[in-house]
């Protein structure tokens, strides 16, 4: 059992680069290395790839939410001129195995539905043709005989559904994917002793990352070698890419996976098993390279990456001094038709399940249910954004019910700056933080008291202006234990989540860094170049970045979980250290000096205190590459100038048994958002009058790119709060299958300005003290915006417990509140 509180003997850590050093490149707003190609329209996106004799594929999508497949007649489709082949689920099952699944016991998912379809849009057949146009023509000619089965769409009904509504009868008699209970700390005792208990039912609806570019793959199969080459805009190929080979029933060295630039991901391209296997299967069957790119309907209905879909019943225990002592919740999470990450999104939440507060005990009952919808996957926050919503809503509820000040209440309950590293009841560790500082900074920047005064004035004019407050955590750098620690029995209990960098300096002193995970728009090239430039005093213009395929790849878990900048900083630092050592050795020979007397300065290595005694890195590199015999004989000194480095998680431990998951997500960022909104109470429309976002992501490699993530994440969070929801009807039909009806925020939906403040509490564990920054905006904006709307409507007594809250829903709440008042 993990005891919550300050850790008296904190783990030592492996930090080499201290945060408090003088830095020349890190911390500057260096312009991005990624931009030039994107600005001139020369990105390398998956649909840009053209291979000779390439064919295009389309998937026939199921129109039913739940049905047995009785027969598929593809004769007319196959006969259509321009069609190369049609592959059905049965045929695919002879050539491929199930798709990878982290849950244990697994839930079988196939690249093409086998025997039955479990959600609208699930692929039933793959058509390979000379063009996507013809493939779609052929799809319309395929005759599938379905035997419809009853569909389950409501998560509460799913708990009790039986018989023909069960999606995976081989797994059990019901649609409960998992039902677990967790107790961290003295939950019952705290609730029994509580002076106050506040309860809420909360609903977080299903939305998704929905990047502007869909998922896709281009695959070819070399008959001469039996080897596949799969270009895909996904990640994790240098981590678990071997599972794609397994699904294709070939040894892993017979598959080379090649990354492409991704047009955004937000989690949804974390591991694109389905499109990879479909394209590869199409290539092997047809004898031609095959391009399979999801269109927008494919992506919305069958991305395998819908976000969390939860109903919480949450209770908060407080003592007589209004200190929060314990949190207890029952959550039902609608996972849709499959279960690829198991309960990972709940494990993720356990990393920060008390938020920034000194809550001593947490009890959780989790139901994961199957329904006839697209499965959940990864969506910016990976479940912890929902945990944040739960915590801040119940905090606001306590403030309201006990008539407290929202600022003072948070302040009094925060983990204090002198309590780090701090262990939370689940066993995870918060490395550093200053939550009161963030709250204070946000108040200052907002002009909090001024806005309170303006709010008062507005109320006298009958206007509804509100100030929202949310103080939330942003976990960074997941440990692989997150994938299995909630499984009943672990299954494949992997514990590595590394990141590698390969660096070579060529004979003229130019550097090439190979990364082993893709670019999602998260500036990996810029970060890697800045760290290397800092380490070796190189000009960033002399550094280029490439992306390794799996044939040439080293372990790379990739972007996600706000980990990538931390891990790249570690990997590049590690590789740079090796190169630095060699550079100083060779320079020492060239300058006839002791390497310990040498320093790096502006692209040169020279003797400390002797400005003229130096050689350029280019000169050293030339020596290192070509002049081995001119250097002293030494078996440890080889020709060349390069290094590979694999950086493992900077601080993670194994789970310790029931109730203690160990340290699995310790690099803890923090945000405080304060939106100011005005609500048109007659129409339910919300507009932003101001928005302050304070983020603590530790040391910032590039503040410009951090700000970009803050604004982008905040916009996405506003979408989650006000606009975005996948709407399934009672029969499992998805009502919004295109961007006409799944509403992404436009510029008119976001504040004209998001004013950003940076608070920096460096991590003691990462290189330079960097923390994650990619997910934060989306992880705090939803509760902040809802808090603001509720505050605006406080005179009417409106409570908001659901997101999204579009105008029709908000207006309904207002109407009900007004009706209650007039009774």
């Amino acid at each position, binding site marked *: 059992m993990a005891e919550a509180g300050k850790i008296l003997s904190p783990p030592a850590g492996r930090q080499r680069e201290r945060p408090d050093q003088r830095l020349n490149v890190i911390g500057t707003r260096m312009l991005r290395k990624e931009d030039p190609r994107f600005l001139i329209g020369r990105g390398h996106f998956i649909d840009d790839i053209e291979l000779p004799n390439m064919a295009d594929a389309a998937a026939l999508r199921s129109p039913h939410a739940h049905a047995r497949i009785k027969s598929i007649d593809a004769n007319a489709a196959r006969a259509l001129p321009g069609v190369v082949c049609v592959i059905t689920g049965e045929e695919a099952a002879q050539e491929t195995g199930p798709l990878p699944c982290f849950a244990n016991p697994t839930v079988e998912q196939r690249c093409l539905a086998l025997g039955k379809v479990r959600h609208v849009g699930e692929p039933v057949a793959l058509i390979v043709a000379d063009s*996507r*146009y013809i493939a*779609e*023509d052929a799809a*319309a000619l395929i005759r599938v005989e379905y035997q419809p089965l009853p569909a389950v769409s409501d998560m509460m009904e799913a708990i009790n559904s039986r018989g023909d509504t069960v999606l995976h009868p081989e797994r059990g008699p019901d649609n409960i994917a998992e039902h677990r209970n967790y107790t961290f700390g003295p939950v019952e005792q705290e609730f029994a002793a509580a002076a106050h208990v506040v309860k809420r039912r909360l609903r977080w609806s299903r939305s998704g990352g929905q990047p502007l570019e869909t998922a896709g793959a281009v695959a070819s199969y070399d008959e001469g070698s039996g080897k596949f080459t799969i270009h895909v805009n996904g990640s994790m190929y240098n981590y678990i890419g071997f599972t794609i080979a397994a699904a294709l029933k070939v040894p892993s060295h017979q598959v080379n996976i090649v990354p492409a630039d991704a047009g955004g991901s937000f989690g949804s391209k974390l591991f694109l098993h389905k499109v990879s296997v479909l394209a590869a299967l199409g290539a092997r069957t047809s004898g031609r390279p095959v391009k399979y790119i999801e*269109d*927008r*309907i494919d992506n919305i209905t069958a991305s395998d990456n819908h976000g969390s879909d939860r109903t919480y019943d949450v209770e908060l225990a407080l003592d007589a001094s209004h200190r929060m002592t314990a949190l207890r919740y029952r959550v039902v999470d609608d996972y849709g038709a499959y279960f690829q990450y198991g309960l990972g999104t709940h494990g993720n939440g356990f990393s920060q399940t008390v938020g920034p507060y000194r809550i001593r005990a947490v009890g959780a009952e989790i139901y994961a249910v199957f329904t006839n919808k697209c499965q959940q996957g990864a969506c910016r926050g990976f479940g912890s954004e929902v945990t944040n919503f739960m915590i801040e809503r119940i905090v606001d509820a306590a403030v309201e019910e006990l008539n407290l000040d929202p600022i003072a209440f948070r302040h009094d309950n925060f983990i204090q700056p002198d309590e780090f590293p701090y262990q939370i009841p689940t066993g995870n560790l918060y490395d550093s933080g200053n939550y009161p500082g963030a709250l204070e900074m946000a108040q200052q920047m907002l002009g909090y008291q001024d806005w309170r005064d303006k709010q008062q004035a507005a109320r006298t004019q009958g206007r509804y202006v509100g100030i929202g407050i949310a103080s939330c955590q942003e976990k960074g750098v997941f440990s692989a234990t997150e994938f299995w620690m909630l499984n009943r029995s672990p299954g494949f209990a992997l514990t590595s989540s590394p990141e590698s960098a390969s660096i070579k300096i060529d004979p003229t002193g130019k550097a090439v860094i190979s990364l082993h995970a893709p670019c999602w728009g998260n500036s990996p090239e810029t970060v890697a170049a800045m760290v290397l430039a800092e380490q070796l005093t190189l000009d960033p213009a002399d550094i280029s970045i490439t992306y390794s395929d799996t044939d040439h790849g080293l372990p790379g878990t990739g972007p996600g979980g706000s980990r990538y900048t931390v891990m790249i900083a570690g990997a590049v630092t590690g590789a740079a250290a090796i190169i630095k050592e060699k550079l100083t050795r060779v320079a020492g020979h060239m300058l006839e000096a002791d390497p310990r007397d040498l320093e790096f300065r502006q692209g040169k290595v020279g003797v400390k205190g002797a400005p003229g005694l130096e050689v350029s890195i280019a000169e050293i590199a030339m020596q290192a590459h070509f002049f081995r015999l001119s250097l002293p004989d030494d078996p440890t000194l080889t020709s060349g100038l390069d290094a590979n480095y694999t950086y493992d998680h900077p601080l993670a431990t194994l789970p310790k048994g029931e109730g203690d998951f160990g340290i699995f997500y310790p690099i803890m960022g923090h945000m405080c958002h304060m939106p100011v909104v005005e609500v048109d109470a*007659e*129409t*339910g*429309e919300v507009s932003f009058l101001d928005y302050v976002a304070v983020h603590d992501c530790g040391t910032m490699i590039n503040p410009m790119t951090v700000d970009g993530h803050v604004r982008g994440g905040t916009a996405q969070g506003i979408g989650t709060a*006000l*606009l975005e929801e996948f*709407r399934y009807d009672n029969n499992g039909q998805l*009502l*919004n299958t*295109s961007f*006409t*009806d799944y*509403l992404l*925020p*436009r510029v*008119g*939906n976001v504040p004209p300005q998001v004013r950003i403040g940076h608070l920096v509490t460096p991590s003691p564990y990462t290189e330079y003290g960097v923390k994650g920054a990619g997910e934060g905006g989306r992880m705090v904006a939803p509760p902040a915006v809802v808090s603001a709307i509720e505050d605006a409507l406080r005179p009417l007594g409106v409570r908001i417990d659901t997101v999204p809250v*579009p*105008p*029709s829903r908000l*207006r*309904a709440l207002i*109407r009900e509140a007004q009706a209650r008042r007039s009774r």
Partner: protein
Amino acid sequence: MKPPVFDYERPPTLRAALDALSRHGSKAKVLAGGHSLVPMLNLRQITPARLIDVSRLTELQYIVEEYGQMRIGALTTHNTLLRSPIVAANCPIMTEAYAHVANHSIRNHGTIGGNLCHNDPAFEMPLIVVLTGATMIARSARSTRTIAADRFFKSPYVTDLSADEMLTEIRIPRLAPGHGYAFLEISQRYGDRPLIAAGCLLTLRYGSCRDVRIGVRNAVHNVFRLGSAEGALEGKSLSAAVVDAAAEAAAAELTPADDLHADDAYRRDLAATLTRRVLRIACARAGHPLDG
């Protein structure tokens, strides 16, 4: 999301286009701006055998001010109308509504004729032409017809045009000088499909409302002129109470309209609210602002 197979022709004149329509009739679709039609083709919601591209017929691109009316060629683009000083002078409610029609890029190519003939229940222009009492000129190879706007729109996506007819002109009568007008719409994203839109025209004579026209588009049903709301105002002198009565009548008159984005209760509620608001603005513009 690729279109199905179809044939295509681009007749060089209106005459040729009408001949093509008479030959192919219901198997053909007229292609104007294409920004409603092509997405429907991409989604394979329609499978016409033939597209008749009329987008280059400059003979149907005009805005002409005549005594008593304004004549607009059906293939005039939205942005041309949005920017037109003739429209602004003759029919300011159209200019006001145009700011809400789709978005700039779509307005570059979308035409008023295409918009009216498509009669998507979320489109604003059908409401405007009904409120202004416009007449539509429809031509076939054999004949020309004049159709009053309030008979042109039959039901969502259905107009009075027969398969061999093309809308060629919209005639908008000049409204009385000093008339009051207003158009408002509520949408979840500015520039996208509205949840509900409302428009109002009226004149004031000695403090009384005359020739009141109020309508809504609710994205579900056909153009809706709200007769009982108009009746609650016609001939009355203005007050907040009269406006409220009209708003209540507006809400009560609507046919239930639920869709993905808003339920019926919301639409009724908003019909009342928007009625109040457009009346307020229209009255102020007519020179008689309401008190309070």
